[in-house]
């Protein structure tokens, strides 16, 4: 199994081969010798590597996992060959634009742009209030507003599509 593992923009390629009960693991081509044990069934693990011992917490599914190691938190995204190809294709299709999603649940305080309006990178698109703090959602790049899907006062969930941008060609 070949996996593309991304954590905070740092990308690694992991090869995991299991043969006759023996596991071989390579990260970026280099063999990694790792002892991996489940300490309970709720997310606590113990890993031994290069003669060192580590207690880890791992949560999540087969694509998005979160690892806590010595107080630091790693958001890890994993794709195999097939998933990567599919995701790339989807990204390409969206061009420079694509949906603007609510990064957190909240309430739309004000929509600052109209459909058809041209935007620059950083143009404020709307104000979202969450945890009593107001946050400006800005355009990720230059383009225009293809569609506005929310209006002031509306409650939105994390991940909800707020508007759709059209990228510059």
């Amino acid at each position: 199994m070949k996996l593309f593992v991304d954590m905070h923009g740092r990308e690694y390629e992991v090869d995991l081969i299991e043969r006759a009960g023996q596991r071989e693991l390579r990260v970026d081509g280099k063999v990694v010798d790792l002892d991996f044990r489940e300490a309970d069934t709720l997310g606590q693990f113990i890993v031994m590597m290069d003669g060192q011992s580590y207690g880890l917490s791992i949560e999540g599914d087969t694509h998005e996992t979160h690892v806590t190691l010595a107080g630091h938190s790693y958001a890890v995204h994993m794709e195999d060959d097939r998933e990567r190809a599919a995701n790339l294709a989807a990204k390409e299709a969206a061009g420079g634009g694509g949906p603007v999603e609510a990064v957190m649940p909240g309430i739309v305080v004000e929509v600052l742009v109209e459909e058809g309006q041209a935007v620059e990178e950083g143009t404020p698109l709307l104000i979202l209030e969450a945890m009593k703090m107001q946050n400006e959602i800005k355009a990720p790049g230059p383009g225009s507003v293809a569609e506005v899907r929310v209006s002031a006062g509306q409650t939105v969930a994390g991940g909800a599509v707020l508007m759709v941008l059209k990228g510059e060609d």
Partner: protein
Amino acid sequence: MFKRILIANRGEIALRVIRTAREMGVECVAVYSDVDDCALHTRMAHVAVPLHGVTPAESYLDMDKILKAAAETGAEAIHPGYGFLSENAEFARRVKAAGLAWIGPPAEAITVMGDKIESRRAMAKANVPCVPGLTDPVDDVAAAVKDAEGIGYPIAIKAAAGGGGKGIRIVRDPSEMESAFRQASGEAVSAFGDGRLYLERYIDNPRHVEIQVMCDSHGNRVHLFERECSIQRRHQKLVEEAPCCVLTDQMRQDMGEVALRAAEHVNYEGAGTVEFLWEKGEFFFLEMNTRLQVEHPVTEMITGVDLVREQLLVAAGEKLSITQDELKIHGHAIEVRINAEDATQGYLPSVGILHNLRAPGGPWVRLDTAMYRHMEVGLTYDPMLGKLIVWGPDRISAIERMKRAIAEMNVGGVRTSMPAALTVLEHPRFVSGDIDTHFLESLTIEPPKEHDILVAAACAIYRHNKAKRSAMDPEASSREEWKERGRRERSGYARRLMERGGQV
């Protein structure tokens, strides 16, 4: 002493009060909203009264419901915790009018100190040094631009009814005034229902240093030294410590005396905190918080004084159990707030079910939290899930102990502010004590690269094992997923969002 008190709050502070009350033989009445029916404060109180409703307004902010619960359960006093009704003078008045004791300062002190402008006026009278600025609200942008010239840039626009950093905007140039004024006003209206703003000189690189005071009704007043709270973001504190490493004994005594003068001027009773901006040995009155504060444990750890116990004594009309002479600073304490937010993603709020909790332990580690397994973290209430507090004989050993304690801890199911706290504690500037209120905002929170190979490899095995399990027992694994989805769908947060017309 009271036989029974009601705690008009939830979460870790409700538990904090219950713990001391139990130790004093005082029974506690908890009140709880619909989402909190299995919360720890509900479970650990002697009596628990449902308030029904979900939002704060329907529950913990509903004075009628709370006073009714107190009457029905025979509670003799009400402890408001922090937040919610703790700084609401009307509530303090209604509690007393109902014949109950209010575990907090007199309503008049709350009123004066709760208004930024009023409090500045009062403090000027009491000869307490204040930040240069106006004592009247400004009417509009034009007036603000004009007044700002007299005070001098940079200027801070603040909500007259504000607190906790809400509604504050900094303006460094007249051209920025219009946009900042509009945002500050909007936030002030939304947060406090009061859009009045006032202007103040903005101190550029201040430390936030505050003094804990305790006063009884017999005229006894003590200060319990300072807390250093400069590690904050959007005026929300993250790491607090006591004592402050740049204060000399003389300065500490001066600030303590000024704080007691401030308290005396408003006939203060109970626990309160006088906050100062501190820069290069000068300090200016910022505001007074007329309640117990989130960060009170660091003061408890260095003095050995249980502040909640003193609050109960004072409210029952008894004398403080401590005098100024008896109070000494013993070692160093640090607190880290555990907020449900993803510090690596710009502190975005994080919600979920806490299914994988691991608490730190060992010498001089204190955990104040109401977290429990399977607790749901939503957006209805404050994102602060708890506090980790350590003590050490000196600042460096306390820092090392806190790093150790954070490394032992895991809050599985949500992201937390702990990686940010750890980044602070590991930073040479923090270790040397060279910090100000902008320090935290200057940091990028990112896990170190050192263990990337390990993490990548472990995740790959984790995925591999999960996939293998599904292949071997597809039914069980789809049942797992179904359960997971069911849990998400049934979860109160999702349900409530749906009810309010949102999408999930």
